């Protein structure tokens, strides 16, 4: 009888564990994806998802983080649509010349509503630091 009880308990624990694993949406975002939502949702748009992987295939880090002046800390850059339209930050490329223009709102504003600003993703890592 003891065996039976132990097996039942084991089954319950495994079932709960699998439920937890299957029911919790894991942070599956691609490593170094950045969510920008300081202004977006306040102005009725989805948050912006910036994929580092997509951009670094095409540009070295120094293009944005040196030439364009993006500081390397999420939240430390005041990225606004008026700035972008004036050619600052994303607007240096997203001007229908190098990349799609600001009229294609939804391609950048593609995030799930309610996401906080931050760097997400993390295959094999979820560091404790502030990024």
């Amino acid at each position, binding site marked *: 009888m003891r*065996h*039976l009880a132990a*097996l039942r308990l*084991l*089954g319950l624990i*495994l*079932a709960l564990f*699998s439920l937890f*694993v299957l029911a919790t*949406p*894991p*942070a*599956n*975002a*691609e*490593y*170094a*994806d950045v*969510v920008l939502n300081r202004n977006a949702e306040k102005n009725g748009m*989805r948050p912006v*998802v910036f*994929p*580092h*992987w*997509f951009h*670094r*295939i*095409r*540009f*070295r*880090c*120094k*293009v944005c*983080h*040196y*030439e*364009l002046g993006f500081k*390397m*800390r999420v939240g430390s850059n005041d990225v606004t649509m008026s700035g972008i339209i004036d050619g600052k930050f994303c607007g*240096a*490329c997203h001007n229908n010349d190098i990349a799609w223009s600001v009229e294609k709102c*939804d*391609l950048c*504003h*593609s*995030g*799930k*509503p309610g*996401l906080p600003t931050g*760097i*997400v993703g*993390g*295959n*094999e*890592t979820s*560091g*404790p*630091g*502030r*990024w």
Partner: protein
Amino acid sequence: MQVSIFRADLPRLIRLAATALALAASCAASAGQWVPLDKDGVHDRKGPAIKQLQQPQEALSKLTPDTTGNQVRWVDALDKGEIAPREKLRPETKVRVLDQDILLNLKGGMPIVRFPHRQHTLWLDCSNCHDQLFKQQTGGTKISMFNILQGEQCGVCHGAVSFPLTECFRCHSIPRGKPGDEQPAKGGP
């Protein structure tokens, strides 16, 4: 007695085994594969972009593979010419690359750190690290894993966008007590 208990629990055991297999499969699926955008937890599945944006798998599966981060060896991909990212937007911008190795952590317990300027300046400009994060003089800045794990110093990038802090020996790469410890090693990553 033992046998009868076993029989009674056979279906349960089979269910358990199936659950365990499913769990193992879901863990295995996360290695060497990239999550589609509609399942990544950050993109809005209902948004119009989901069908238009490039999937990570399409772009990243063609590059030199890694076991972590974006699952791409970005420096190798660059060195092998698999990618050709632009160095500048403005013609007048000066592109600076430095081929010089710095050895760090000479007295610690872990293997010595070889910091290769070449791989870093292929991607970054000098001013991204100097002199805000690190003084230019070797030994001028006290570097610690405590700071790095807090997202400072090397941890500004490593653990956020470049290979993560789980990969200790990519930086701590020179074993102690070998001839040539005193001289900066030259060569590949």
